[in-house]
């Protein structure tokens, strides 16, 4: 038994040259690569009847219109659910009927009657009648989730809603509200997502333990809109499909797919490659760079959202009127407008965003360090003081805060930035434990009361108040202004109402602890072959069913 050495198949032995080893390995890698890198352009990047949108959709937690309040979900609701009426996107002061054929308001402004269009169907095939309308509105009030206040502010409660919202004559729905609010106010509230019409038969079939179908509708669909919800995988994808049972003009696109892509740079790459048709979260720098790209255009719309700094009135220094005013003279509005919010916002110094009835465009403040110093001296702080600000670490909020820090320093105020994540800073703000906070607020419905309600009203400044608007969060005690804001909501005459809001904004500008900075513009970058895409002023008015490729 002799030992026969095997013929060696040398790999990296000393006697072989580097060159051979290199070529062998390169060959192996090439073979692997050839298998692993298949042809990627077999199909067109996105099919012609499908629209792909990259958007950060991780804010969505429910698909039930009675509970939904997040921005991305709002857009989905606007495309998949109908309501009694909508506002005209091109002229938001005009209201157009949706499910309702017509409506009347009683002379005392407390009874609203809506006649429902006959012959309508839900996506499921079930007929859409006044019964479904009454059911949907009652359901929203009874479930009493976050957006229900939009309806319950008119006096509807769990106990009385079945009497106050009911069907008459089998084809009309009547609403009885508690006070003679301005009709445009009430009607605008009924355009909101919470007033969406859901399929009563379908929802009741999926009810469990008297939950009004809440458990089921959270992740399912029961609507009648131009598109239906085909699929929702949280933080991943939303797929909408054309609703063939829709009573109005059919959507040109068969499918709209929202892909969750958190990173703006990734969104931009996909858009440039053609793997996405629309990118929604690009930064001002991205938008500037894309201006040179011939395949891509941009579209912008002013939103009902405003940015502001707010000063906690519980703080002994910040509650002095001269100090409050000094802060307003220490923001470099021009610089912020030209750099930090370029393409995504404009300087705006009032709490009502432009587009709402009565919005003021007055801009009395500009950067004036000397004036601010004089005011501070008058208040007893000629050498400034130390203060903190809670800031969430995202742009453009971060840029605006840093700019503010610089200008404040020139007047001797040392503002320390306390960065945090969005929910973290919000939690602190809601507990009134901040000094200064930088925030933003968007309209819930297209009526001035939505912002007046939070910036200019504070029914009770107590720690355990039943209502905690932004004015409360900053401990601003304003019984007189609250009364004025309430009166403005009840004023029927549009001209008089406008004058009341203008007066409110002037008063607010001069005396409030809010330093208003700017109004948001939402900009999206779209590929040239996409037509008809327009962002709405509110999230539920971005109509995908009007888009074509």
């Amino acid at each position, binding site marked *: 038994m002799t030992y026969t050495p095997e013929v060696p198949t040398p790999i990296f032995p000393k006697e072989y040259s580097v060159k051979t080893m290199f070529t062998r390995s390169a060959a192996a890698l090439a073979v692997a690569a050839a298998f692993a890198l298949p042809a*990627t352009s077999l*199909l067109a990047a996105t099919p012609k009847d499908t629209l792909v949108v990259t958007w950060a959709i991780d804010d969505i937690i429910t698909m039930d219109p009675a509970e939904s309040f997040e921005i991305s979900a709002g857009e989905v609701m606007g495309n998949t659910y109908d309501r009694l009426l909508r506002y005209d996107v091109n002229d938001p002061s005009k209201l157009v009927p949706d499910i309702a054929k017509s409506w009347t308001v009683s002379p005392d402004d407390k009874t609203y009657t809506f006649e429902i269009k006959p012959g309508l169907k839900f996506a499921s095939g079930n007929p859409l009648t006044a019964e479904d309308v009454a059911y949907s509105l009652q359901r929203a009030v009874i479930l009493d989730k976050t957006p229900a206040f939009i309806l319950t502010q008119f006096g509807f409660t769990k106990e009385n809603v079945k009497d106050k919202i009911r069907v008459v004559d089998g084809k009309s729905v009547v609403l009885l509200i508690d006070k003679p609010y301005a009709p445009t106010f009430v009607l605008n509230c009924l355009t909101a997502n919470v007033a969406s019409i859901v399929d009563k038969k379908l929802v009741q079939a999926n009810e469990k333990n008297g939950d009004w179908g809440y458990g089921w509708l959270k992740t399912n669909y029961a609507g009648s809109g131009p598109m239906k919800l085909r699929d929702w995988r*949280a*933080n991943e994808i939303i797929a909408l499909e054309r609703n063939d049972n829709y009573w109005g003009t059919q959507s040109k696109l068969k499918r709209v797919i929202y892909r969750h892509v958190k*990173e703006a740079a990734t969104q931009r790459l996909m858009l440039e490659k053609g793997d996405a048709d629309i990118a929604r979260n690009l930064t001002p720098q991205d938008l500037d760079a894309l201006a040179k790209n011939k395949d891509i255009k941009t579209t912008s719309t002013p939103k009902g959202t405003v940015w502001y700094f707010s000063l906690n009135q519980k703080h002994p220094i910040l509650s002095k009127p001269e100090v409050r005013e000094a802060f307003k003279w220490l923001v470099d509005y021009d610089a912020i407008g030209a750099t930090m919010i370029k393409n995504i916002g404009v300087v705006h110094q009032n709490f009502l965003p432009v587009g709402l009835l009565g919005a003021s465009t007055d801009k009395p403040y500009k950067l004036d360090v000397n004036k601010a110093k004089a005011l501070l001296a008058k208040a007893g702080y000629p050498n400034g003081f130390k203060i903190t600000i809670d800031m969430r670490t995202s742009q453009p909020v971060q840029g605006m805060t840093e700019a503010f820090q610089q200008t404040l320093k020139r007047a001797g105020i040392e503002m320390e930035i306390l960065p945090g994540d969005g929910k973290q800073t919000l939690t602190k703000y809601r507990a009134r434990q901040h000094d200064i906070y930088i925030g933003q607020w968007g309209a819930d419905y297209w009526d001035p009361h939505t912002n007046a309600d939070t910036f200019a009203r504070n029914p009770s400044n107590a720690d355990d*108040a039943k209502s905690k608007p932004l004015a409360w969060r900053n401990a601003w005690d304003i019984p007189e202004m609250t009364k004025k804001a309430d009166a403005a909501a009840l004023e029927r005459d549009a001209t008089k109402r406008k004058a009341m809001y203008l007066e409110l904004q002037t008063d607010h500008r001069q005396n409030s602890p809010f330093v208003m900075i700017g109004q948001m513009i939402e900009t999206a970058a779209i590929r040239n072959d996409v037509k008809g895409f327009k962002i709405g002023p509110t999230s539920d008015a971005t109509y995908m069913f009007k888009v074509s490729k």
Partner: protein
Amino acid sequence: MAGAVKSVVNFLGVILLTYLGLLAVTFFIGRVMPIDPVLAIVGDRAPEHVVQRVREELGLDKPLYTQFGIYLKKVAQGDFGTSVLTSNPVMTDIKRTFPATIELATLGIIIGAGIGIPLGVWAAVRRGGMVDQIVRVMGLIGYSVPIFWLGLMGLVLFYAKLDWVAGPGRIDVAYEYSVTLESGFLLLDTARQGQWDAFRNVLSHLILPASLLGYFSLAYISRMTRSFMLNELAQEYVIAARAKGLSETRIIWRHALRNAMVPLVTVVALSYAGLLEGSVLTETVFAWPGLGLYITNSLQNADMNAVLGGTIVVGSIFIGLNLLSDLLYKMLDPRTRTR
């Protein structure tokens, strides 16, 4: 016999204690975090009474240890709770996101170890040579370059400019609804359904992020392989084998590497575990709906049921892989086998 039972009981006891400790720490951190979990559920606009009602429904007004006790009782019954963000049971969410991470991590470790080990051997054998220098530089890059930057650069180069790979996400929109998700492992599902176009598309989506993760494990594995190999090649048995007339190849691959494998197995197993817990940064850049992104998002919203569920999964991975490497140790090194 009693000895064997005792060691098994001991062993199970240790595992149980580990889980308990993991859950307790995570739970208390979650409750003590300055984020209000109710905020994520009801949002910033909710009227005060809605906030209070939801707070009571979640049991957040009870003392901490009561809340923990309730949670443990539910877990013992197999109920891991519902995620407030997705409204699904936590285990359903994890069943959906974990396979995505497993696919990515497995391909990553195959690339990492498959290239890293030979590279490390080469560097050890030709010590001081060209490959050794390359391995050193690669290791340095692996430690210092941020992974998300490299990922974005990879996308810009291989996806945008060269069109060699598909972009972010697991599969192209065109194939999205032609494949039925069975196991959640897209490679398996597309293969089983015979959809070879979709299979190649999935592979094309996988290759870049997997290579990225592979690169970072490669940097570590190759360095470790190199040092273990150097250790082995300096041993006397190697000199003896050479004197006996064995070919160099046989010495390196059948003897030295075999011995170096013993500690190397632990290195690879732990690298794999590290990849399996979900690389959040990679998943963000590549829009990969995996476990890392899921846990991070839940954490930022104080969705504790989801975070705890994810923690149990990650903890199980580490415990499991540690056990596996212990077993492999016993298989590869006869000296560790008990007689």
